[in-house]
């Protein structure tokens, strides 16, 4: 789950992630690399006189070390806390006075900053972003306040949310070596022990032109954007890329089960398996087949999981499937359900796994495949209604090492997936020895009122 500087953006980012395969029609995307190594990607979109500008740093929680989890996200907060030229708090104020909106978010794979505003204001935000790419102050006093804000964010979005705690527990069990095992927001003790020096080290390691990509979508000529980008970002000195350790998750040899007890009414279940992600958009048919499988299991109200668990067997009040094909790190295929009864966790888990088994044994029906294709084509069109959505898509693909203009290829490859391929991946990846199960066991919570009731 992405962590954001403001709450409203969380759901937006999550919603955008669901449409990872929607392609861009119309004008072609233009690409340029500045001399200092900074990449610039421009998608013209003339529907309104506005522009979205995003700076993506290829540094997320997966690049963190033990003991300083959460530092990528803390630094994101600190990026609004001032440079020599722009005092703390002024960044957003300047953007707001230019009629703009700005925010930022951190995910496992990246940290991204964005502004949406009238097209006449693009050079202003380039100037501001270029300034904080190299001149961040990182003052002790500002850090001391902001780390408290981040701890409040963790309390709000994780500690008091049993579903988030369960996901955190699940990921920590599914991965043993790969840093996907730690939450983006960071473990609370790590936040309590974090210092401004940790944030500074992170900034110096990752915030440089060769590790950044500028993505612009809007009512502007690509060449004009390149010129403006060169003007503001070009003067930042280049440097050699920081070497990255390749971290791989060793094979899982046996089922893993974890339990979380938290204040809740009904049990929740997550069941996941290690699966491949998309690395080669032309060749990796297994990823496309897994995407189709997740859609057939959970892609609409009458897909296999909601129909079987919610409508027919009534063992769950909700059920779904999730597979993210576009990641820098390893992939997981996750089924989820909220049981219909307090003692229904096992029944929910059984029904989730049985639905997958049926796919492996009996395959899928032609109309299910056709439906998935239709949904992929439609969502490719719908995605283009939002400029921020288009910018997110370009940035996400690029950050994961995929061609940023490869969405059309991906939608075509999805159309080519066969029923046999879906059945083949359903048979191949879902053995019990590579399975992780996390169960939320409900605990009562204490609540009592005083004061005027009426």
């Amino acid at each position, binding site marked *: 789950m992405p962590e954001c500087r403001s709450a409203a953006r969380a759901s937006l980012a999550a919603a955008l992630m669901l449409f990872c395969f929607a392609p861009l029609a119309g004008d072609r995307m233009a690409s340029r690399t500045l001399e200092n190594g900074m990449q610039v990607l421009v998608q013209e979109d003339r529907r309104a006189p506005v522009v979205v500008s995003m700076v993506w740093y290829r540094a997320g929680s997966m690049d963190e070390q033990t003991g300083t989890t959460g530092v990528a996200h803390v630094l994101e907060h600190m990026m609004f806390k001032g440079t020599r030229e722009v005092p703390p708090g002024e960044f957003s104020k300047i953007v707001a006075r230019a009629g703009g*909106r700005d925010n930022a978010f951190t995910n496992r794979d990246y940290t991204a900053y964005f502004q949406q505003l009238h097209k006449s204001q693009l050079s202003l935000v380039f100037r501001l972003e270029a300034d904080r790419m190299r001149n961040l102050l990182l003052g002790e006093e500002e850090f001391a*306040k902001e780390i408290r804000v981040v701890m409040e964010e963790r309390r*709000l979005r994780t500690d008091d949310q049993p579903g988030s705690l369960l996901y955190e527990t699940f990921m920590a069990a599914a991965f043993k070596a790969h840093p996907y095992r730690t939450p983006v927001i960071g473990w609370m003790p790590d936040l309590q022990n974090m210092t401004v020096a940790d944030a500074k080290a992170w900034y110096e390691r990752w915030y440089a032109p060769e590790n950044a990509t500028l993505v612009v979508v809007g009512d502007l000529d690509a060449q004009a954007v390149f010129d403006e980008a060169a003007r503001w970002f070009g003067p930042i000195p280049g440097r050699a890329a920081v070497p990255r350790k390749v971290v791989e998750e060793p094979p899982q040899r046996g089922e893993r089960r974890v339990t979380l007890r938290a204040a809740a009414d009904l049990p929740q279940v997550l069941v996941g398996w290690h699966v491949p992600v998309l690395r080669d958009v032309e060749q990796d048919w297994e990823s496309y087949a897994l995407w189709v499988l997740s859609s057939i299991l959970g892609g609409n109200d*009458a897909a296999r999981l909601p129909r079987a668990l*919610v409508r027919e067997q009534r063992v769950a009040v909700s059920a779904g499937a999730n597979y993210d094909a576009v990641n820098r790190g390893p992939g997981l295929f996750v089924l989820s359900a909220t049981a219909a009864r307090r003692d229904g966790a096992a029944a929910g888990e059984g029904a989730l796994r049985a639905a997958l088994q049926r796919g492996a044994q009996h395959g899928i029906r032609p109309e299910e495949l056709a439906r998935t294709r239709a*949904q992929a084509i439609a969502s490719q069109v719908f995605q283009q209604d*939002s400029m921020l959505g288009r910018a997110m898509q370009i940035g996400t693909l690029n950050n994961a090492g995929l061609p940023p203009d490869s969405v059309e290829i991906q939608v075509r490859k999805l159309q080519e997936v066969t029923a046999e391929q879906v059945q083949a991946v359903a048979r191949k990846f879902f053995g019990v020895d590579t399975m992780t199960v996390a169960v939320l066991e409900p605990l009562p*919570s*204490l609540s*009592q009122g005083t004061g005027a009731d009426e």
Partner: protein
Amino acid sequence: MSSVLVRAMLVWLALSVQAAVAGVAIESWESSRGARVLFVESRALPMLDVSIEFPAGSARDSAAASGIANLALRAMRMGSAASGGVPALSEDEISLGLADVGAQLTPSFDVDRAGYALRTLSGERERVRAIDLLAAIVQRPAFLPEVVAREKARVIAALREAQIKPDTAASRAYARLVYGDHPYGLRASGEIDALERIEPAQLLDFHHRHYGVAAAVVSIIGDISREQAREIAERLTSGLPAGVELPPISSVPSLQQAVQRAIRHDAAQAHVLLGAPGMRRADPDYFALWVGNYILGGGGFNSRLTVQVREKRGLTYSVYSAFAPYQREGAFTIGLQTRRDQADEALRVVRETLSDFVRDGPTESELAGAKQHIIGGFALRIDSNRKILDYLATIGFYRLPLDYLDQFPQRVAALTLEEVRDAFRRRVDPSRMATVVVGGIAP
């Protein structure tokens, strides 16, 4: 603020925010049976957004049948009845029919309004299929006993889950204090014991009464002609119930004194809500209060509340103030969450910030900044079909003028400092507010 760069930027901005925005051309007419239709032709993408809404929100519930409005909307898409030569549709047929053409159906529900928004490709095959399904949903819901029983159980499960959470405890107590017995204070998805008693026949009756054609508002934007829009509006409204004349929703009485409620809870954070009945959608003070609120607590990272509670003191991740303008006076609310031992301090800062703002109003610089943001960024409010659809639905339901989107930046530009201060002084009284704090049990 002393830096040369910042000052140079602000001066430059002040000169450059007069960006002109092309208006949105809205066409509007009545369907042959009297439903209101609003349409914007938009040819850039091969897609279509359509919404249909009714005065069937949670304020149409009663204490005895609380939750009926939400349950009716929710179960409406889960099966439609046969009529004339048109066959019945099962819930699977509806869900799969929409998925087969890649269409997306989203319910919308608040105290005033209930309805659905449909997004589909605009090609004839997809468009006709999706519109037919939406028509079946809103015109002939079946409310089969088995489906109703299951959906009641799911809503009740969600209510039980929510009841454990501190934010739910806070918002329920807050609604009781602010709205009293006014229907805006009813829990949107109902009370468990009342829900358990709701029968399918009551849902049918609710649909007949509240989903009447004369009060329906159909909003359309996308890649179709006006003639095609007319056909769609006819298709969606021709088979609607006649409906009944609904009683007007009464005015929300002001609070006569300060009231508070503390609820102990063992969550990590305390949840704090503070407020009172606020303004109506058609309020004469609408723009003054809305722009003032942007400065107080609606404007993201630059608002007074965010600066005082979050940026200066690190007490919260999110603090906001907001008006909820409906047919009647929805609440003006300030909300935040903070570590449970900090609730008193945060509340003190909020009260001071609010009192200062109501007493003195915004500064010249704050009002100028708010205008620059709202007017200079107006294009962002109408830069997608989805956003325009929402405006169409609001304009249609609340009978706002069709040139509302053109008036919007002009009305904001015309506001004076005195108008904003005066509106807040008259309409927001910090000494007569409801305060709820949920939290405070040590682990």
